[in-house]
């Protein structure tokens, strides 16, 4: 993989590791951004890893664009040899699929959708050749997902499904983006799922909501007092379908600020994952469930 560099105006260097998404591209991007961080290059003001690319913002009054580009290029060899091992976290995210709030919202924006006569989940099941909504939810929630990018809006995770490519769920984005998406909606576009951290515009299909806060600018939520944003690239997520009663109980706990997310430390090795996806995922589930 050879990285394609491009200047984004006079203050950014944009780097595309690969045109297509893969965990290999993600790990190269992460290694590169970690190397840039560790190098402490003067004049670098923002280092942003993404799914299969990354970006460095710099102050051209402190470092010349060409000099920074040379430094980045010199790191490329080491980064591409990254062994793809990560000390990370696995966390459970409860999801109320087919909830009333995303349903009300998707009904308001049917004219922007590929299939105005189906819900987003019905459409997603159909385009993935699955029998129906229940089968789709099972395919969506049975295997873990990898946080390959944080962004768009504050703390929003992009999640990449940890299964063979031919089994990965793919759903087109809305034809035209909505102007509204409920907070904490579980969305999906292309091969990525996401959790909308704030209410606002969005183009991803809407499958459900989680009661679990993932961004808190007031830093009052017990587990978001040190960091406003829960997710970091490399985190691993397991969706847990919940009933309306379980959702309501979780919301009550959130409101009383006694909600505790299930988060466990774990390691991830890309080479081990590529050798045995089912076995790697089973170990992750053991780490999550404490067995």
């Amino acid at each position, binding site marked *: 993989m050879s990285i394609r560099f491009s200047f984004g105006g006079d*203050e950014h260097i944009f780097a595309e590791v690969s045109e297509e998404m893969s965990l290999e591209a993600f790990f190269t991007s992460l290694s590169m951004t970690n190397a840039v961080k560790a190098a402490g290059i003067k004049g670098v003001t923002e280092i942003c890893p993404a799914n299969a690319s990354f970006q460095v913002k710099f102050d051209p009054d402190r470092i010349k664009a060409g000099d920074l580009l040379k430094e980045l290029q010199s790191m490329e060899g080491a980064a591409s040899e990254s062994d793809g091992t990560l000390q990370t976290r696995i966390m459970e995210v409860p999801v109320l699929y087919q909830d009333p709030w995303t349903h009300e919202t998707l009904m308001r924006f049917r004219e922007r959708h590929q299939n105005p006569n189906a819900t987003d989940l019905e459409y997603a099941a159909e385009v993935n050749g699955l029998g129906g909504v229940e089968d789709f939810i099972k395919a969506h929630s049975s295997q873990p997902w990898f946080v390959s990018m944080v962004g768009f809006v504050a703390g929003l995770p992009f999640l*990449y499904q940890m299964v063979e490519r031919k089994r990965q769920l793919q759903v087109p984005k809305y034809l035209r983006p909505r102007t509204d998406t409920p907070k904490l909606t579980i969305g999906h576009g292309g091969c990525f799922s996401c959790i909308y951290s704030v209410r606002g515009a969005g183009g991803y299909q809407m499958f459900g909501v989680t009661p679990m806060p993932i961004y808190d600018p007031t830093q009052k939520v017990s587990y978001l007092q040190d960091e406003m944003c829960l997710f970091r690239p490399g985190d691993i997520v397991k969706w847990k379908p919940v009933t309306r009663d379980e959702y309501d109980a979780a919301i009550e706990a959130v409101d009383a600020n006694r909600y505790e997310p299930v988060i466990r430390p774990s390691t991830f090795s890309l080479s081990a994952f590529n050798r045995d996806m089912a076995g790697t995922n089973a170990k992750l589930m053991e780490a999550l469930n404490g067995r």
Partner: protein
Amino acid sequence: MAVNVISSGLSTTVQDLGRPGYYHLGIPISGGMDRFALRAANMLVGNDEGAAVLEAVFLGPELEFTAPATVAVTGGDLPPRLNGDGRSTWEAFPVKAGDRLSFGYLRTGARVYIAVSGGIDVPVKLGSRSTYTLGALGGHEGRALKAGDSLPLGAGTGAGGKGAIPAGLRRMPGSTAELRMLPGLYWHRITAAAGKQFFADTWKVAPEADRIGYRFKGGTVLDFVPREPPFGAGSNPSNIVDACYPYGSIQVPGGTEPIVLHRDAVSGGGYMMLGCVISADMDLIGQLQPHSPARFVEVSMDQALAARADRQAALARLRAHLGR
């Protein structure tokens, strides 16, 4: 010492020079869209150039002062009135306790910066007082101002109260704004003819123009170079695997209407970008009204850096003029 908000205007927010360092989490830099005008307003009232001010767009707020202070309004031509009497923009004026500042109708530009000596002293969040409304972060309670809000002022009243900035030292877009851009990023995705046409067209600012980004319409739909969609990108020729968006980057969803991301940018997404508006011209975008014409002008990196130096020289002239 406080500023009381009698009426809010259309969308008035507390802004300083911004909040760098959190873009990797999706938290944008925020801060004034026209930082040249923001710095000028602070200079006029004797503040640090990066003190927090109010940014008002299209329609001004009405404010009441609880103590004597020095005030300056810069940016667009939104005529200030003190207790109903006209005051000039780009000029410091004193206010007394109980005085009310209001505004007439916008003549040119889009945004004004209202600096008060001492600065707007809302809590610092992640290193800045700027408001990021989408993320409910910073500023006054993470949102645009509402009637009834009371904003604390910093202690120092500064040595302002005098001085004005003549028109020759200000910086505003021309009648057709010329936004210089460095092509790059995913420029290779469009045909050479489409690239040529992109610069030849005169665009108009669309109604969807805010702190996140400015949309432009009325130009030619882009022709893309054919390709097999890369895995994970999506099927539209304008789709890419979701990537970072630089500030000033010009994305063109569906190849139809370019959007230039600004200070409250979404940090990434799945649309190809043609390049970036250069740092020196980002201030100008903040002064564009919907329906106003604009052109994109191709420049090289050397030209972008020369324009950046010009903007810094213009700020140096302001400082010299005001004896700072």
